[in-house]
């Protein structure tokens, strides 16, 4: 008797904790705002203009996504290491933060199909002699904590067994350290490297060589179990390419030329 009562109580409790099923996609549309995690010290993908408002490829991409959903976009600045924690703690709905779609991460968050692809370059301080990427061996190198290139670079340094690796919290700190000569070299995306060299904000640095990495495909991400939203994101990325918006944004933020091909030959998805 008591047992059945208890069971009934438990079932009632369970029924109460399981809400009528509205998924994240519904929630976003209902709330009227889409909160995107964007990294804002990652030019030209994310940065700030003179009045310190967020601008950049990722910012526009988030705005496009919000427009497609018929809601207003809210840009939440997250440093690289805080991107996924910000999603997991419900601070944002979607990450539009140049996030590499690694398998390790996919254990925790759900990734869309790639929406951009980076190649990486080696950038060095002018005072350091370096002609190829392999000259980084034995040097003091650094990159932004938690990024694809940081993970690659740290592994390289460990394989070489000499030199040292320093992760910084933000891309800006990396280039600041490089410009000040605290670092001999860094690896960053070609886009960021060129933008930073060109801006003149960081005197005394130069692009040395391409880094021999597999192109860094980056994806939008959201909660792993939000299939409805992930489906939507996939279609959205597809539409951005199909409608030419992808090429348009590339031209606006990165420059002339062809944006990277997002399809990988010889395999589905």
């Amino acid at each position, binding site marked *: 008797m008591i047992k059945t009562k208890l069971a009934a109580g438990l079932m009632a409790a369970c029924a109460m904790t399981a809400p009528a099923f509205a998924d994240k996609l519904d929630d976003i549309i209902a709330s009227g705002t889409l909160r995107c995690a964007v990294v804002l010290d990652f030019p030209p993908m994310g940065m700030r203009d003179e*009045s310190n408002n967020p601008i950049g490829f990722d910012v526009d991409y988030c705005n496009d996504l919000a427009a497609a959903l018929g809601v207003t976009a809210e840009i939440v600045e997250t440093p690289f290491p805080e991107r996924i924690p910000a999603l*997991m703690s*419900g*601070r944002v709905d979607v990450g539009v933060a140049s996030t590499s779609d690694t398998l390790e991460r996919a254990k925790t968050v759900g990734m869309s199909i790639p929406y951009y692809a980076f190649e990486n370059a080696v950038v060095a301080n002018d005072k350091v002699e370096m002609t190829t990427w392999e000259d980084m061996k034995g040097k003091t190198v650094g990159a932004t904590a938690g990024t694809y290139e940081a993970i690659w670079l740290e592994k390289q340094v460990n394989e070489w067994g000499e030199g040292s690796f320093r992760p910084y919290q933000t891309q800006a700190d990396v280039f*600041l350290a490089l410009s000040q000569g605290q670092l001999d070299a860094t690896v960053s995306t070609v886009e960021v490297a060129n933008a930073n060299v060109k801006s003149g904000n960081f005197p005394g640095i130069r692009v040395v060589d391409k880094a021999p990495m597999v192109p860094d495909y980056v994806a939008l991400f959201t909660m792993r179990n939000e299939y409805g939203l992930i489906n939507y994101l996939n279609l959205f990325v597809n539409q951005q390419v199909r409608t030419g918006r992808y090429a348009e944004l590339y031209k606006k933020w990165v420059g002339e030329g062809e944006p990277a091909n997002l399809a990988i030959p010889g395999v589905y998805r």
Partner: protein
Amino acid sequence: MFDTALTAADFVFLAKGAGVTIIVTLISVLAGTILGILFGVFRYQVGAIWAAPLTFVLDIFRSIPLLIQLVLANAFIGTILQIRISGFTVACIVLSMYTAAFCSEIVRGGIEAVPATTRRAARSLGMTWGQDMREIVLPLATRVALPSWIGLALGVMKDSALVYVVQVTELLKSTQILITRLQEPLLLLLICGAFYFVISFPLARFGGYLEKRWSND
């Protein structure tokens, strides 16, 4: 060095950051002090053994880096309980508990500093516990506790620099954002440091003055 690209808009941006620092500090110190007084009186009143669980919990807030407290609280509230609240709220909750943990120590120390004989005298004059607390303990304990409390409040203001980790753009984070755009680390850092100093220094001095004045008699 003073040939700078800093504009008036950037100063407004910094001032906003400073405003956030001050608001977070005020809320946390206020809530933390109220909680701290409650916890402190409770701990004194029920004795060490019965207060042990509370003491243990409060001790955790003093033994773990604030950065980790913020990260954990953020992950716990957002990821595990899945409650949607702003980073600002998380920051205030954690800093309030952090303040309360230290404040309860100060309060307990203050109450203990009131001589037992004085309190017994008050009670034997017919004062109730409440009257004793209000009329005897409060004024005397405040003298002992206030200077430390000022130190604590300033400490919380300085420690509030860490709430950047839950996406709150306070003063130091605003400074970093400007450094990112303008690449004038030294100048910007000096401005930021000067701001903290200008608020903290006079208050710290005032605390020192009170301590000196009240300890002489």
